[in-house]
């Protein structure tokens, strides 16, 4: 197990490198630079700025320098937000996104898994139909529709919760609900599907035949293998959740990473985008590793490597 973990952690190095390299090339290919503005900067101004940020060197030199700095954990200055470094921006925004993402995930799991299980136990029952209809509604309602609806109802009509902002606890409720809703719907449908795969299996019948109580059969035998698709889905989903959602952060004026990342791409804030990509890539790797470990624990058959 230890060797497996170490091996996987070692694998993140080439992953990070490949991600950074591709992203580096991509963002340089995009037209317009960080200092392309509605009002033309003079050629001299652009030259000064490029020199200041080292953008006047040949691109390969910049690339090597970037990797060198990266090794020291230095993500460089932001080009757009002149007095802040990318490290500072991530340090400011990640905790916000993490908090929002964790709340949304909690909500999604708390709603999605029980709903999916209940639905799977009595397929095509009224329960099932109700839950799955709700889930489908959740899926077909994008967050940029759901969010405003929640705001109109809870903030503007009832006046219970703030419409936007990120200062006190009530501020967290609506963004977390909006962000979590679609994931709850996904999880409900995927856990239902996963359970339905397992329930007809021979070992489940055997367990029932042995006289185990219905609940015991589910908890001991069905739940773990039945959740495999949900867990596979959760790796990337969680990584996406905790690193922020552009739409939800914009809808509720939440100062998180997701909106920074997209706005950074629009601003051609090269160092900000690259820094976020590095960070995001690391988070993805960690969560996918976590998922693989979890899958192995849930079902020994799932171990891709013998040596776990």
């Amino acid at each position, binding site marked *: 197990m230890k060797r497996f973990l170490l091996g*996987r952690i070692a*694998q993140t190095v*080439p*992953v990070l490198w*490949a*991600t950074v390299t*591709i*992203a580096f090339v*991509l*963002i340089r*290919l*995009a037209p317009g630079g960080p200092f392309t503005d509605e009002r033309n900067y003079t050629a001299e101004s652009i030259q000064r700025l490029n020199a200041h940020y080292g953008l006047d060197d040949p691109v390969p030199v910049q690339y090597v320098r970037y990797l060198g700095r990266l090794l020291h954990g230095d993500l460089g200055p932001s080009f757009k937000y002149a007095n802040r470094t990318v490290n500072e921006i991530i340090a400011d925004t990640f905790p916000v996104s993490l908090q929002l993402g964790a709340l949304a995930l909690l909500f999604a799991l708390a709603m999605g898994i029980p709903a999916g299980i209940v639905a799977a136990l009595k397929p095509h029952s009224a329960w099932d139909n109700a839950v*799955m*209809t709700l889930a*489908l*509604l959740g*899926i*077909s*309602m*994008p967050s*940029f*529709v759901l969010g*405003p*609806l929640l705001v*109109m109802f809870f903030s503007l009509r009832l006046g219970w919760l703030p419409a936007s902002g990120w200062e006190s606890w009530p501020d967290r409720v609506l963004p977390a609900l909006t962000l979590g809703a679609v994931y709850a719907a*996904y999880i409900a*449908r*995927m856990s*239902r*599907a*996963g359970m*339905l*795969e397992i329930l*007809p*299996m*021979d070992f489940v019948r055997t367990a029932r035949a042995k006289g185990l109580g219905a609940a015991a059969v589910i908890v001991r035998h069905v739940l773990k*293998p039945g959740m*495999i*698709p949900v867990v*596979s*889905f959760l790796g*990337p989903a969680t990584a996406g959740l905790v690193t922020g959602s552009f739409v939800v952060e914009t809808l509720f004026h939440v100062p998180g990473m997701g909106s920074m*990342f997209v706005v950074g*791409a*629009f601003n051609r804030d090269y160092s900000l*985008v690259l820094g*976020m*990509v590095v960070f*995001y*890539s690391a988070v*993805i*790797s960690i969560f*996918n590793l976590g998922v693989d470990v979890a*899958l192995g624990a849930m*079902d020994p*058959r*799932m*171990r*891709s*490597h013998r040596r776990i």
Partner: protein
Amino acid sequence: MTLQPARTPPRLWHRFRRHRAAIAGLAVLGLISSASVFAPAFAPYPPDAQNLELGAAAPSTEHLLGTDVLGRDLLSRLLHGGRISLAVGVCGTLVSLIIGVGYGALSGYTGGRLDDIMMRVVDVLYALPFAVLVIVLMVVFGRNLVLMFVAIGAVEWLTMARIVRGQVLAIRQEPYVKAAQVLGFSHARILFLHVLPNVIGPVVVYTTLTVPRVILLEAFISFLGLGVQPPMSSWGLLIREGAETMDSFPWLMVFPGAELALALFALNFVGDGLRDALDPRFAGKT
């Protein structure tokens, strides 16, 4: 449950036909798509005919679903927009389905080092900045709809691949797969005939989940300049525009949203029927 070769198409249809909701779903989907494909014949107005003085008007006998802010008939725009959205929904999902299932199955079935490498490639692709990717695609190759499918396919297959891999990892240890291996069947045959049919449930569900994502993703891509350009439209764009004005003109959000939801419900029933028809373990039931 033991060795279960895939069913031949006629039996498949036979089994599918017994699923009433699925048939209804198929009928609704057929209706929606033919209304869109033959939009020029059905649409009461040209989709780009403006009436600025009229502006956004609530549904009336003249304009059944109302008009948008430039006074264009929403029903006509919805019908025409469906052509793009259905094409994107079908093609984008198919691309992600084929790549995702093939890649995930190969990765999971082989396991070991190849699995590691393939999954790390997925990790790399997850982390790339999508907006930048779309902008670069557009600038390097120019604007066209095929590119949009490429962009969508490039992101949407990743999660599918991870899900399929997870399922296949579990199934490849099943006795019937081991048995097939002992019998000396080729890996391709085992993968296609014995492994894949048994992951069909989650695949069908995730596929039906992918369709709305793809349709809405198209709106974002169009926003970046790669996809559909005004005065053309799509469901995704109409919903997006509707959400922009939902405080003032709710019908502009409700009708496109309702049509998308209707299509998804229908699709979902079809998916259920398909899964029941394809999945070997539901052989004796229904």
